[in-house]
């Protein structure tokens, strides 16, 4: 399968016209690159690029943005798109003008959809948690009074003393705050030209420009503390592994008197592996007298074992929650071994037990995503048919009340009852069909579930068109047939005949 995947993927190549567009865009960087020096000796360097795109309107939009970018940013179009992709809830963005009365002169960073580029080559790719902290910090930071005597000093982007850049977009403007290493802050706002107008030939002048001088040491301290947490947040997110290692990477087997789970159990196995990784095993404890040896524990409620290159590991969990973790290294022939580790823990075994059974139960249920798929659209009708022995008899109750109950059952509770464990389909067992019609936007969808007496349920979904029916999908599930019939009776369906 691995080779098949690779072979299939390798056939994907970039279309020639796309390649040409990209080459042209890259070559245009050279043409639009501008360098100029201010009177005060500070150098402005900006990289603009004409973006060659599939859509004419995009060309106009980006040309306009690029025109701003020529003056506005070393981040150029890259930054524009980086921003667009990074946090793009423009609708919720707030114009700076509306927020000038706040303590932060640039607006409420909790509301602004901004990118914080700390000049650390991460280009503002931080977690939402970090952005929340940055917003809090930026809002509360003392930016001081607007600094009027700039002595000709203006934009500091792309100069070696740049500390960081913040930028965001509103519906009609591009706002940027540059902060230099000495605390000089320059805020500029460019109002974007109307995209219906032709691209500008001249760079835009800022609609607004402000300057501040901040305590850069305090600013840096606050920022570095927050960014240091970013690594911890990332590590925490990825470190969901047990003290014994990552169960999702092991080929383990878990068993107790009634349960045996290994990699053949698919989803249960994955869920149990996750649970074992997340489980709070607590601190290592001392061995209990007389129960030091793993083989001395004979009341194991659970035994979990796995092997890594001739190292065989055991986790034995006794009825009272006493846990022995041990590992033995075997030779090539598995004839001799030496112990390589042994540790002891104590856990709450009933919760562990419940967790395992929850995993098994969850693995059998269909996912919420599947349920959403199966119930997508507006229900038009739900009918029940008796299709046993070649019949095709509509047995949906005719009385309004019962009809509604059965409709609600078939379109709701019945779907929730479906499980993922597939039971072989057998024509002799065919008993009912539930035909559910949905309106999904302008489409009419028919989902028919064939329910077998052995619990097998097969779904066929079609799109109903004027020309006929187009199959959309098919899927197999199972259901507790007795429970299904009990509900039908309860809701007034006549299934006795």
């Amino acid at each position, binding site marked *: 399968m691995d080779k098949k995947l690779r072979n299939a993927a390798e056939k994907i190549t*970039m279309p020639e016209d796309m390649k040409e567009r990209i080459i042209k865009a890259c070559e245009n960087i*050279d043409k639009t690159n501008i360098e100029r020096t201010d009177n005060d000796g500070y150098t402005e360097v900006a990289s603009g690029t004409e973006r060659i795109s599939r859509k004419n309107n995009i060309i106009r939009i980006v040309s306009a943005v690029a025109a701003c970018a020529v003056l506005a940013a070393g981040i150029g*179009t890259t930054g524009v798109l980086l921003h667009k992709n990074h946090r793009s809830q423009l609708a919720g963005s707030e114009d700076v003008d509306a927020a000038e009365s706040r303590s932060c002169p640039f607006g409420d960073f909790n509301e602004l959809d901004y990118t914080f580029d700390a000049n650390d080559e991460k280009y503002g790719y931080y977690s939402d948690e970090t952005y929340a902290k940055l917003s809090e910090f930026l809002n509360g930071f003392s930016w001081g009074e607007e600094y009027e005597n700039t002595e000709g000093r203006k934009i500091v982007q792309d100069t070696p003393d740049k500390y960081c850049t913040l930028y965001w977009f509103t519906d009609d403007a591009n706002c940027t705050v540059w902060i230099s290493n000495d605390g000089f802050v320059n805020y500029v706002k460019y109002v974007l030209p109307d995209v219906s107008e032709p691209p500008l030939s001249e760079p835009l002048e800022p609609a607004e420009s402000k300057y501040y001088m901040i305590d850069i040491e305090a600013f840096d301290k606050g920022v570095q503390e927050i960014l240091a947490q970013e690594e911890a947040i990332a590590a925490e997110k990825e470190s969901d592994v047990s003290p014994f290692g990552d169960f999702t990477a092991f080929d383990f087997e878990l068993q107790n008197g009634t349960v045996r789970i290994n990699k053949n159990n698919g989803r249960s196995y994955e869920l149990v592996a996750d649970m074992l990784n997340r489980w709070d095993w607590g601190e290592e404890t001392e061995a209990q007298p007389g129960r030091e040896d793993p083989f001395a524990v004979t009341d194991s409620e659970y035994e979990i074992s796995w092997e890594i290159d001739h190292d065989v590991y055991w986790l034995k969990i006794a009825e009272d929650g006493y846990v022995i973790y041990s590992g033995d290294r075997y030779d090539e022939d598995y004839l001799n071994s030496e112990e390589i580790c042994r540790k002891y823990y104590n856990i709450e075994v009933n919760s562990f037990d419940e967790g395992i059974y929850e995993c098994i139960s969850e693995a059998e249920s269909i996912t919420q995503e599947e349920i959403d798929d199966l119930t997508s659209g507006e229900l038009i009708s739900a009918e029940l048919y008796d299709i046993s022995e070649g019949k095709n008899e509509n047995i949906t109750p005719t009385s309004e009340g019962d009809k509604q109950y059965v409709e609600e059952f078939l379109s709701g509770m019945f779907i929730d009852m479906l499980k993922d464990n597939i039971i072989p389909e057998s024509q002799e067992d065919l008993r009912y069909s539930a035909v559910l019609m949905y309106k999904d936007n302008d489409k009419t969808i028919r989902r028919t579930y064939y329910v077998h007496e052995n619990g097998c349920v097969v779904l066929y979904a079609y799109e109903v068109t004027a020309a006929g029916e187009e199959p959309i999908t098919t899927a197999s599930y199972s259901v507790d047939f007795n429970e299904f019939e009990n509900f039908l009776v309860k809701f007034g369906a006549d299934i006795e005949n």
Partner: protein
Amino acid sequence: MQKCGCAREAVEKYGDMLYRISLLILKNTADAEDAVQETFIKYFTKAPEFADGEHEKAWLITVATNKCRDMLRCRTRHETESEELLNTYAVEKSDSGILEALMELSDKYRIIMVLFYVEQYKIDEIADITGVSVSAVKMRLSRGRKLLEEKYRKEYM
């Protein structure tokens, strides 16, 4: 600013690879084009000095996958429709199943699977490129592989 004048050479050399990765992650040709284009723009404006060809390649992949991840995040927030890959891209029918199955995996598995199985990076290299831990790469590979097998066998065989 660097490497200008050799845009064609760079796009010819790395374009297919970056496009393949972006398309498999984003499942949308237009977005993939955006991701590749922005990657090359960054390459010509912001790329550091590279130690060797592998370093350069890994840098490009890192930038491209970061862009793809951002686009996916943006897509989640804005409910952008992804297109049916095979409707817009001519993949041979015999290959469609495995790619379709791959497309159905969640993003975090798909990125790792593409780098491992398609671009044949080692686990530690993938960890460097994607910025996730080695154990997380292993975990995602292991789970992703199982999910892919399951989906492929269930739906396309």
